[in-house]
């Protein structure tokens, strides 16, 4: 019983895919799955190793379009063993053909095939990963779980979780037939870059095949990448400081904005702040402004009126700094500092800046 990790090296996101999949292999498998990953107690992180019994091993299958990328791609693989397949970019339907040709769907024995039964095929988060997993399951009679938050190998089936009901709930699922085709949730892309993951595995390239032959009429032509929208936009910001009316003055608002900049955070403001012209209108968070979803949001001197809380409620962690413990923001925050906002945020900026100088956590907003 073996597993394959699939990386799409025909696009620039491949390093992120590799990181996410490695994080998933480390943290996304329940205890019962540790074996599957070939991870031994002493060597968490040395993925793809063969257990003592010699039966569980993972390989990474890397698709590439350009020969020049090969070396770099091999280094990204989260397992020791790597196979390379040259293919057509942006055609998951054809990549699935390639996977089948390698024997991903059945016991394969020929040279250059995966060999043996592949139990689990793991693809990255995002559209391509989901398409690969789905199409592969359709063609092999296997089962597919997209956007997996975690998986766990049971005695006869694979169990996994993903969000359902439009993100209102998590669902538990059982995958009843093999191969289990699993694409991981995109949130793994954002996982911490764990220091325990060894980036420099020694890799073995087991095979390298070219599946680009047999010129087919392509359905997609004139592909043109459009510049992605700029990311200093509030909606995209991963760390935000938001000033509320409790800041009290234009001067204080400016100091909060400066502290934000020092910490590498984006800066937004509540409606009353903007209405007072203490901050420009494009900083407005909440109704008729921006709805944000930062990982970390520090709210300074805002009571947390519904108009504002709507704009920040999707934040991962909310810190409120506010002297009034009756304010609605108290209910909407993860951590609360009952104090003068400006004083605290300036102290905090100091601490973060000092930390950065020591080479510690240095956010790049």
């Amino acid at each position, binding site marked *: 019983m073996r597993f394959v990790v699939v990386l*799409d090296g025909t*696009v620039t996101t491949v390093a992120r895919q590799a990181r996410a999949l490695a994080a998933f292999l480390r943290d996304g498998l329940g205890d019962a799955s540790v074996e599957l990953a070939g991870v031994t107690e002493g060597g968490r992180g040395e993925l793809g190793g063969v257990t003592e019994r010699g039966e569980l091993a993972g390989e990474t299958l890397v698709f590439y379009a350009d020969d020049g990328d090969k070396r770099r791609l091999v280094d990204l693989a989260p397992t020791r063993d790597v196979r390379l397949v040259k293919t057509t970019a*942006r055609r998951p*339907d054809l990549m699935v053909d390639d996977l089948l040709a390698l024997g991903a769907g059945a016991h394969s024995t020929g040279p250059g095939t995966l060999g043996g039964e592949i139990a689990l095929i793991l693809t990255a988060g995002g*559209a*391509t990963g989901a*398409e690969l997993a*789905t*199409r592969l*399951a359709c*063609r092999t009679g*296997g*089962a*597919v779980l*997209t*956007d997996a938050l975690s998986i766990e190998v049971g005695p006869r089936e694979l*169990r996994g979780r993903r*969000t359902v*009901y*439009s993100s*209102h*709930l*998590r*669902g*538990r*699922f*059982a*995958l*009843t037939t093999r191969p289990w085709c699993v694409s991981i949730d995109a949130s793994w892309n954002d996982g911490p*870059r764990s220091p325990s993951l060894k980036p420099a595995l020694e890799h073995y390239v087991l095979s390298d095949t070219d599946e680009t032959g047999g010129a087919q*009429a392509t*359905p*997609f*032509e*004139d592909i*043109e990448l*459009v510049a992605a929208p700029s990311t200093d936009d509030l909606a995209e910001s*991963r*760390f935000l400081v938001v000033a509320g009316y409790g800041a009290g003055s234009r001067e204080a608002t400016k100091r909060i904005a400066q502290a934000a900049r020092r910490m590498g955070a984006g800066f937004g403001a509540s409606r009353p702040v903007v209405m007072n012209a203490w901050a420009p209108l494009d900083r407005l968070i909440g109704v008729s402004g921006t709805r944000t979803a930062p*990982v970390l949001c520090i709210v300074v001197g805002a009571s947390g009126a519904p108009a504002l809380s709507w704009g920040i409620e999707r934040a991962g962690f909310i*810190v409120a700094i506010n002297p009034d413990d009756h304010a609605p923001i*108290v*209910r909407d*925050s993860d*951590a*609360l*500092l009952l*104090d*003068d906002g400006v004083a*605290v945020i300036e*102290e*905090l900026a*100091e*601490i*973060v800046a000092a*930390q950065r100088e020591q080479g*510690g*956590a240095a*956010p*790049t907003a």
Partner: protein
Amino acid sequence: MGMGGLNTEAIPSQMSDLRVLACFKATPDFEALREADWATAAAGGVETRYVRRVLNCFDESALELALRLSETAARRGVRAELGALSVGGRDVEPYLKTLVALGYERATRVPPEAAGGESEVAGGESGLDFAPGVVASIIAAYAQRVAHSDLVVLGWRSGPGDSGTVPFRVAEALGWPCLTQVTEVEPLSDDRLRVACVADDGPLRLTLRGPCVLAVGNAVVSHLRVPTLKDRLARRHRPIEVLAAADLGVDIAAQRHRETCLPTGFETIDRSRRGVVIEGQSPHDKAQTLFDSRLRDIMETL
């Protein structure tokens, strides 16, 4: 797609250049449920029968994109014929009527229950919410056998199942490619479309030739236009077609048995925030405690 070059065979007058099938699902409006309603999920399921239906937002984009596609096509001398399909109970009929009033030429629903055993509880949840394989078979069979579609346009995912696999499964069944996270579609000629989509590596545009499944994502166009009372009156006699899955060669009960990713339970996602008060003697103390206890770790993930 396309009628070939110098074909001299008689072309039926009804022939259209581009047959577009738009599929949609009406889901309970999850936003209308309260925290307390979700809290019961772990114990059993969520009671969504009592909340109003809404169009799945991505499907709504798909339906409007199809209308715009047909309008642009008409300006370029290409006739696009629009069909709408929903695998759904009686509660999708108001939507089908709206689509007919807006100019969809065919509006069809396939009840989600096995023929004969149709238990269409008004407002009830479809029995196929967690059976994306069955839904995809119905859509593919309809596209192939009834609508002879050139293009299938639908939302990239829909609750409550949210598997996001239906478009890929339809493409698999039809042997077509699939473009996902589609945001715009513009017909260039009777066999070429310019499509904008958001790939994993960023937004891109490409020219599409030949049949394809277009899975619509966060399109700029997210709302379906509204027909006037006069539009409704004018097209009120057009029938809403109800087809049994069996007529499409799909055996719902048997197919359901073949689903291989089965839901086994639900968990609530606790979103309530703790509001832990960080104590300290001075602003500096508090900031330091906050940083040490929480922020240091979080900032590492930024």
